[in-house]
């Protein structure tokens, strides 16, 4: 009886590891298929699947808000935008038979450097990680509910404590719209003229 809770914990840990390995290998497989596929419509759908898998992974890491955004933006809207773009530019990739050494080398080296970088990151979910011990974190977690009246700390940090940042982000999104409008609306007038003549 004494060993039961411990055994349960080990069992849970093994299941978690198995799910993580499964999801990460699915991500790797999807990425490889994206590289190999020539049909760009299929590639757009596969990147949507990639986003959805990432969202699942974020949920496992307890980052529900991030997972939510990834599923809505990555799997939903950006896939549609990608398909919309493909309908403009055509969905056939230019044939490329030769293996390009330099990009492959750069990607491999960057990947290895990033992996080396993760060695310095403190282990995931440990109670005494610097991020959990820092006084800012402690303040947010303990004071936020009666300083802002918000049970959800993510919201209170985003909208209140870090309100400036969120305003900056909103402005960035607004700037994206201005950019798209400037780039896309100029030529559209000519095209509308063109189709009007044709119809």
């Amino acid at each position, binding site marked *: 009886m004494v060993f039961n809770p411990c055994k349960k914990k080990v069992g849970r840990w093994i299941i978690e590891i198995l799910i993580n390995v499964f999801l990460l290998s699915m991500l790797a497989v999807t990425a490889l298929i994206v590289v190999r596929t020539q049909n760009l419509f299929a590639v757009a759908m596969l990147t949507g699947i990639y986003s959805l898998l990432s969202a699942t992974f974020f949920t496992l890491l307890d980052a*529900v*808000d991030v997972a*939510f*955004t990834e599923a*809505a*933006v990555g799997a*939903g*809207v950006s896939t*549609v*935008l990608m398909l*919309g*773009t493909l*309908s*403009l*530019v*055509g969905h056939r990739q230019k044939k490329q038979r030769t293996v390009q050494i330099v990009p492959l080398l750069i990607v491999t080296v960057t990947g290895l450097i990033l992996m080396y970088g993760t060695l310095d990151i403190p282990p995931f979910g440990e109670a005494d990680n610097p991020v959990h011990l820092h006084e800012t974190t402690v303040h947010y977690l303990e004071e936020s509910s*009666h*300083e*802002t*009246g*918000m*049970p*959800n700390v*993510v*919201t*209170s940090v*985003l*909208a*209140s404590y870090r*309100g*400036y940042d*969120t*305003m900056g*982000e*909103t*402005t960035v*999104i*607004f700037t*994206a*719209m201005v950019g*798209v*409008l400037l780039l*896309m*609306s100029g*030529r*559209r007038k000519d*095209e*509308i003229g*063109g*189709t009007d003549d044709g119809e």
Partner: protein
Amino acid sequence: MESNPILRIATKIMTPYILLFALYVQFHGDYGPGGGFQAGVIFAAAFVLYALIYGIETARLVLPMGVATLCGALGVLIYAGVGIATMLLGGGFLEYGFLDSHDAEHGQHLGILLVELGVLTTVFGVMVVIFYSFAGRGRVEE
């Protein structure tokens, strides 16, 4: 896609629920995961779905390009406006506590609600504008 009755009916049934879910995500953001950004994207996704099935011209009758552009700008205005309002009430920029002279916590709640509304409006407008700009152009091939 415009002649497929199953897709048309399914879209008709789904769209109000997607919009409702977006509002739920928006207003439940105080208690659970979610907030203005996610809600804005979901709200826009409802219109994207509508435009995909019923055609972009029909969608533009429901939500004209100009209105979407206005939304994109209005959200930032709401956000910055809250900041200016708190400054006028004697606080710092975006110091929501000053929005309610009696209860600072209540002011915080109100401020966050308004700011999230601003984020929702901008994200929704921008997503729809970008979608219209890309999908509404004449096709080069075919």
